[in-house]
């Protein structure tokens, strides 16, 4: 029984009793950059979650005073942690850019009967990103 039949998909008709079905390879996403990009984009969620957890831990140690925060910093100085953070940074960047680029496809904004151009919708996301990042940087570095 093929996976299709097992899941109860439409079965054969009277006139075609013997169909040939190909199985989907487990590595279907490796052959093509477009599919690989999709899988990497999905995978990036894990790194986004990791980034959130680390940030929460950082805030938590900050709330427990300077010594706790120094201990946190010490732990983060580990070369393994730095390598992991570098990979996480790349994936979070990839996550952000790919989703911003896809945003106009899901969002249809109409102004005066005309659809607002894709560049404008994606662009506004990037502008918001830049403004928020700049204000966070200003807050920390001032």
């Amino acid at each position: 029984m093929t996976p299709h039949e097992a899941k109860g998909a439409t079965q054969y008709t009277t006139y075609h009793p013997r169909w040939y079905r190909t199985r989907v390879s487990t590595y279907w996403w490796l052959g093509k950059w477009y599919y690989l990009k999709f899988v990497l984009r999905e995978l990036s969620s894990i790194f986004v979650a990791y980034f959130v957890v680390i940030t929460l831990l950082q805030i938590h140690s900050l709330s427990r005073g300077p010594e706790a925060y120094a201990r946190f910093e010490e732990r983060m100085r580990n070369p393994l942690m730095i390598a992991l953070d570098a990979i996480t940074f790349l994936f979070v960047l990839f996550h952000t850019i790919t989703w911003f680029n896809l945003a106009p496809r899901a969002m249809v904004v109409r102004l005066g009967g005309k659809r607002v151009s894709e560049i404008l919708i994606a662009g506004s996301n990037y502008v918001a990103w830049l403004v928020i990042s700049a204000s966070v940087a200003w807050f920390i570095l001032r």
Partner: protein
Amino acid sequence: MAETIQLEVTRYSPEHDAAPTFQRFEVPYRKDWVVLDALNYIKDKLDGSLSYRWSCRMGICGSCGMMVNGEPKLTCATFLSFYAPDAVRVEPLRYFPVVRDLVVEMTDFMVKLQKVKPWIIRKEEKSIADGEYLQTPQQLDVYKQFSMCINCMLCYAACPVYGLDPLFTGPAAIALAQRYNIDSRDQGAKERMDILSQHEGIWACTFVGECTEVCPKHVDPAGAIQQYKLTAAKEWFKSLLMPWGAK
């Protein structure tokens, strides 16, 4: 001697073969020939037993979709010159069961298409004497892109979700449901929502986006599905906030 090009074509005879094989054909190479012209040449001059679907040869009927070098393509709009001098591999549309050679079984798509009710639904039909349902150019513009679908099923062959979960309603059927949902004359959005908001409907889609890339009519089914997800999420939220609201 005139230039030629090699074609590797899937052959499968349900009566004789356990699995499909490839057969090589040498056909004349002409700059103005599309893959479908080469298949017609094979059928006319080399092997009359080759089976494949085609009709209009001008990108309207949606019959001649096949895998050309692994990509879902309308063979009537795919020029040999794009691949020459390399061989061109022609296979039946991916993820569909093969009936014979390049012919796939498409009942699954037809059943799904019908299930999403892609027609105008009215709560109360106007009488003929009352005249047509009028629409402004702006109202037409809202859904026109989605109405360009020719049911060629290339988007299904591009969709790994459909390949892995055959119960998935699929890109074209959802895009066509959305085409009627946003038609100003239609009142059936609620009826379609019950079908499409199931897991096998819009929520099975993971936004791979390849359906939109391969669509020969620039329908953007991936966009249609994401837009529909947004609508469904808003509806769900509304019903949560105002459970007493009119259904």
